[in-house]
């Protein structure tokens, strides 16, 4: 192919219909190679909303995020949990190598306050990650959050019930989780790039590489994590 054309095709604003967007998006590796491969940019995207839909709790919806949260622990900035439905359990989080020093639990009394807090946390740019459990979403509220995430460049995660898959959402990445034997089936409902019809299967039993290689400060190259 013509070199000039190739350069154009490599541009981040261009994607070809037959593949996942090559965007040089700012991402955080998920810690699951199979999932990284399926996500544009190779990880959780920063500066946008990610929606995680699941029918029920307790199938591993938080476990899915732990490696990324552990990675983010090396960066400055809060990991803000807005209106979590239960108590985020400190011993388990510490074991997952999440830096609790950076964890901020926000428990607003009203729904309106919760949306406000999520928006502030995203917009401020002071949160590396914002995990939010918000009720009564509508498109306008979601769009505001998405804009706040764009402004603050943080990783915004919104947990929603599975039926929300039917509704429209401005979040560019939407995943639906289903429990699978010894793991998790991740359906990618929406992503920048082509559609994926098969779910990504994650197996908890697979030995994962160390989440936080403490030797290097550079963006973590995944392969020599075992150092």
């Amino acid at each position, binding site marked *: 192919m013509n070199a000039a054309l190739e350069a154009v095709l490599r541009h981040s604003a261009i994607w070809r219909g037959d593949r996942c967007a090559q965007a040089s998006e700012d991402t955080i590796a998920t810690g699951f190679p199979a999932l990284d491969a399926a996500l544009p940019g190779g990880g959780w995207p920063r500066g946008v909303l990610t929606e995680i839909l699941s029918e029920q*709790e307790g*199938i591993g919806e*938080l476990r899915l995020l732990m490696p990324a949260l552990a990675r983010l622990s090396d960066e400055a900035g809060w990991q803000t949990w807005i209106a979590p439905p239960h108590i985020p359990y400190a011993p388990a989080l*510490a*074991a997952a190598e999440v830096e609790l020093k950076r964890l901020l639990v926000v428990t607003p009394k009203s729904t309106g306050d919760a949306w406000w807090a999520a928006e502030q946390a995203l917009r401020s*740019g002071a949160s590396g990650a914002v995990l939010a459990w918000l009720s009564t979403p509508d498109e306008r509220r979601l769009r505001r959050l998405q804009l706040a995430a764009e402004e603050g460049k943080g990783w915004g995660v919104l947990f929603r019930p599975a039926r929300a898959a039917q509704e429209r959402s401005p979040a560019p990445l939407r995943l639906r989780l289903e429990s699978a034997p010894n793991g998790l089936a991740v359906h990618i409902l929406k992503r920048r790039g082509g559609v994926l019809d098969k779910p990504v299967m994650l197996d908890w039993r697979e030995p994962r590489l160390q989440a936080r290689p403490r030797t290097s400060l550079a963006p973590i190259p995944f392969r020599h994590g075992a150092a």
Partner: protein
Amino acid sequence: MLWLALHFPAFPLEVFSRGTLAPEPLAVAEKQGSRACVVACNEAAMNDGVRPGMPVSAAQALVAGLIVRWRAPAAEQESLAGLAAWAGRFTPSVSLQPPDGLLLEIGGCLRLHRGLDRLLSKVKDGLSALGYAAIQACAPTPHGAWLLAKAGKGACIRDPTRLESVLATLPVGLLEQPLEVLDGLEMIGAHTLGECLRLPRAGLVRRFGRRLPDELERALGKAHDVRAFFVPPARFERRLELPAPVEAAEALLFAVRRLLPELEGYLVLHQSGVQQLELLCRHEDVPDTVVSIGFVQPVRDAGRMQLLLRETLGRTRLPEPVHAIVLKAQRILPVAAASGDLFQDAIQTGDGNLLLERLRARLGKEAVHGITPTADHRPELAWKPCEAGQGSSISGNAHRPLWLLPRPVSCRDGRLVLKSGPERIESGWWDGRGVARDYYVAQDRNGARLWVYCDRASGEWFVHGLFA
């Protein structure tokens, strides 16, 4: 040396009017002999025909609903001190010129502010944010600058040789001399300073005393003019009278915004920051409403204080209209001498403390916290909420669920499959919250993994967490 004189021609009025945006007609009056006369009035009153010097009764007859406040020399004095503290951000050498002026020695700080023009426009903008309008004049001598400012000439003289020729044109009425001296000068036909200067000094002294030639020499820089510089008080407490009682938080915020820059200048001068701020809203009949805000670290930036005050004020219920506000800096702590301007935009780019303060201001202190593991075997006591940023990740336990239920839920579903366990936890008999439980990891038919236990005393089963 270069002196900047600031003259506030409408000072008695501005002391009241700066607290509000409302353009209602307002006049400030003073007893002069047996009559009460208007000393100053705002534009709305002026448009309706009120003029300074008019008896109050006449003014009230002209304008229905005219708000008349008595002139408050104490408030003026206090405001002048507040202004001097605010001016501390430009130069440490600020001298009071009571009742309505300030003198700033700016020769030494021109480079810092990148030139005289920039400095002057900064001062002007700052003053209008505070709600004052000033006439600025610069001259190599303090008294010369002051005379120019009082004459209403926004002149800027940097060359000492030009000073005399400019001052010579000013009328003698500006001089700070007793009335009979000024009258005497008029009588002998000396109407301007220039004409005074042409008279022989010995004759002037004989006729009017030493003070007149002394003043002229000070203005021209031929005699020493020693100024005492303003020393800011150890505590910051500023009161602002509102011209009319206010009920809306928005109007209150406007008044607060007038005081915050003063506080900022005060803090710059003290090289310190404030950690706790108190705003007292004075009511007529009921006790003050106290609005208090705290900062994670000492803060100096007025914009930041305003941001938090807005959030807090918006949620404060005022039992009655407010007629005055008092801003108090409660805990003033030294902060490293980082210049505010240099790092101003650092606040924009993700300031973690700012987020924390804002969340706390709106949601309440208890709604925002961190978490930390604690050394206890009982699961519900193995963690506790803590001050944000104080969590420790030292003692983790990989066999614990990520979600803990605030209260164990009785488990009646017989279709759980126990996957692993038991893990016996028996502890706490000494403090009355003893537990004796066997914990298991169970899976329900939908594939969710639960942390369940069997209470060994009762034999009942409970769900205590979710391996989310």
